[in-house]
């Protein structure tokens, strides 16, 4: 009896000793370094001459599939450099980069989603952009801002996307609108007329809440002069009369039955746009293909820049991909030269021709298809007036809080002023993480 019971008593003891040991180890080594990755200066300028050595690149999605063949021009111009592209899926990308940074086993260059920049820069995993590598003024302002964490740039914008208003031109004409709406009041009237005169069920489809609804709401707030953070990006400034007013306006579409509060399934928006359930919606460049696949003919719909509050153009949301060089890269010189090559206007234009990604460099829009296609020009025009969310490590968490408060407002659970002050409160308690 005794003998058989002994181990049963000893086992938890062993476990507890181990636990205590692990704890002491954690305790003993604790204490955070002050500062961290952010707020350092730009990196030193890269050397003159051609790139050499092996340059390992990670890219996601279509970019990853295409980039491998696309770099032949770079290889021709830099015979000593050997570019190796690894395609990784978007879903796995974030964790893969985070793990690479943690283990120190990184490639040289990677494509980074714009909203991840704050986090990776803060962890010290990616390198500040070298002095004089590219000219900030060449890029769209919103795109460049996405690389700046705590006042230092940590990469170069590669491609961009922005949100515009999609609407059914045939239905709008039926409702008496030959011109697109150009102000908040007009947009509201536009939605009403589409329902009353053209028989659509919902004049506009806006997300009532849920992941990413801030991307549709913030353009209204930005157009009204609201901002998420102060100039230096050190404090949140969400709680403002402008933000509240924007949320009141946004909410009015749900209160007046012009937008549905239901969560849409994949494909529901496109098919609803095709069969006249939704008269309009706000989205990015990928939707031109999606709505056409759903059966909307090219002459049945149009894209237009977001209407501003009054006559001024609206400010939209911009996202996309940045190129960053890892701090643990063995060939930073070659890596930055490769990044520099990818952000030359000719390369950007050629890459658009290859995959259809909108160039982040403004001058790439001056010639070729980008200059001629009226639909693309709308996106180019909107990019001139588009903002990125603050590049702080905690942004995703703040965004989730904003999303949930938007939902409370649109579904009548709280009033816009309270929702906005709750956003501010939560954002302040989460902090910027810098």
């Amino acid at each position, binding site marked *: *009896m005794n*003998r*058989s*019971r002994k181990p*049963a008593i000893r086992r938890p003891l062993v*476990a507890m000793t*181990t*636990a205590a040991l*692990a*704890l002491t*180890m*954690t*305790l003993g*080594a*604790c*204490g*955070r*370094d002050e500062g*961290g*990755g952010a707020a350092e200066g730009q990196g030193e300028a890269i050397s003159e001459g051609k790139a050499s050595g092996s340059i390992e690149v990670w890219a996601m999605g279509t970019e990853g599939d295409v980039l491998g063949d696309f770099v032949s021009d770079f290889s021709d111009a830099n015979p000593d450099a050997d570019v190796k592209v690894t395609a990784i899926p978007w879903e796995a990308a974030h964790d893969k980069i*985070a793990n690479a*940074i*943690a283990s*120190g086993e990184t490639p040289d260059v990677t494509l980074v989603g714009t909203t991840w920049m704050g*986090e990776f820069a*803060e*962890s*010290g*995993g990616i390198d500040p952009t070298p002095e004089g590598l590219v000219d900030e003024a060449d890029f769209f302002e919103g795109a460049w801002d996405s690389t700046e964490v705590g006042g230092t740039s940590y990469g170069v914008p590669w491609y961009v996307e922005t949100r515009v208003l999609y609407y059914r031109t045939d239905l709008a004409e039926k409702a008496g609108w030959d011109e697109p709406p150009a102000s908040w009041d007009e947009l509201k009237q536009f939605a009403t007329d589409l329902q009353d005169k053209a028989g659509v069920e919902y004049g506009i489809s806006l997300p009532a*809440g*849920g*992941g990413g609804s801030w991307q549709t709401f913030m353009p209204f707030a930005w157009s009204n002069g609201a901002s998420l953070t102060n100039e230096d990006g050190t404090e949140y400034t969400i709680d403002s009369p402008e933000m509240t007013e924007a949320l009141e306006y946004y909410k009015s579409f749900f209160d007046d039955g012009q937008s549905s*509060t*239901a*969560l849409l*399934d994949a494909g529901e928006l496109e098919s609803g746009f095709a069969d006249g359930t939704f008269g309009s919606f706000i989205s990015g460049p990928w939707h031109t293909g999606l709505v056409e696949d759903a059966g909307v003919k090219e002459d049945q719909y149009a894209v237009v820049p977001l209407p501003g509050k009054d006559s001024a153009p609206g400010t939209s949301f911009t996202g996309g991909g940045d190129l960053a060089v890892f701090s643990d890269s063995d060939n930073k010189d070659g890596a930055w030269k490769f990044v520099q090559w990818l952000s030359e206007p000719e390369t950007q234009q050629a890459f658009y021709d290859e995959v259809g990604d909108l160039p982040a460099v403004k001058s790439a829009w001056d010639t070729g298809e980008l200059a001629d296609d009226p639909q693309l020009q709308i996106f180019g025009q909107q990019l001139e007036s588009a903002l990125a969310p603050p590049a702080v*490590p*905690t942004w*995703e*968490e703040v965004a*989730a809080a904003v999303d*949930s408060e938007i*939902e*409370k407002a649109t*579904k009548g*659970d709280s009033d816009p002023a309270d929702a906005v002050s709750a956003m501010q409160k939560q954002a302040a308690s989460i902090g910027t*993480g810098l």
Partner: protein
Amino acid sequence: MTATTEVSSPDRGHKPRSGGGSSPSRHVDPTRRQQALAAWMLALPFTLLFLAFTLGPVLASFGMSFTDMRRADIRSPFAVQFVGLDNYVKLIEDPVFRKVTVNTLLYLVLGVPLTMALALGVAVLLNRIVRFKGFFRVGYYLPVVTSIVAVSVVWKYLYRDNGGVFNTMLSWVGLDGPAWLDSTTLALPSLIVMAAWRNFGTLMIIFLAGLQTIPKEMNEAAEVDGATGWGRFRYITLPMLRPVLLFGAVITGIGYLQFFEEAFVMTKGGPLDSTRSVTYFTFDQFGFGNFGYAAAASYLLFLAVVLLTFVQFRLLGERDDKPSKRQAKKAEQARKEALS
């Protein structure tokens, strides 16, 4: 308790022989030593893997729940601040965490009885029928082996407001069905109904096995004594099934406390967080990179699982021996008193 005595009893039998033989001379049998060495060698690979990949991470995450570790710290995981119980205090004060705790409890108190009742009902019926038993058994078990994500996607379409199967069926009888998953009051029950439908198959098989161990004679005797069907179920079937019911309640309870995939696929935790569970909350926090906070949340859930299991053992398990032992003692005492 019973388990330990059972295990130790054969050992006790051996003890006098081996212990008595070796205790005078402190000689250690070389074969035994070799056996012990071999045993350790054979156990070593598992032990090492277990320490490195199970116990290590478990302890590390427990330690992590007392620090302010964030994702930006991954390059220097030991350079974090020790914050004591701050994470736990913050969790209890967090209105979202409170909300998800209430939701999780709702999943538990609504889901477990519903799933068990369904399983027991179907098991009793299946126990009665003679033909097509195998067919029905497989049929009811099928949802369990189907991918939970696939099931959720299909049910999402069943619940759809416009053109969903349920609402179409309701419209045949002239009712206008609600938007099941877009309503803060209906979304959670809707998910529970689906989860019960998906999960009761396992319990049904276990209950069916339990039912088959109940001797037929007992039911026959009761029938002769004039017991009704309900009476036989209440006073014979249920008490005889108690250990099986306990097992069912424990595993189903643990499952519902960790409710996640259904909400993740069907409602994304919404509308207005009404279907977000504690596991979902933890998942979100890990996603935001708040490793310390997320670890604390998962240890609170672990504590809840332990508590729940303890309570269930108390309610369903011990009741059937303790009072009966006490009763037996009382009865014996009474008999003795009567005799004297």
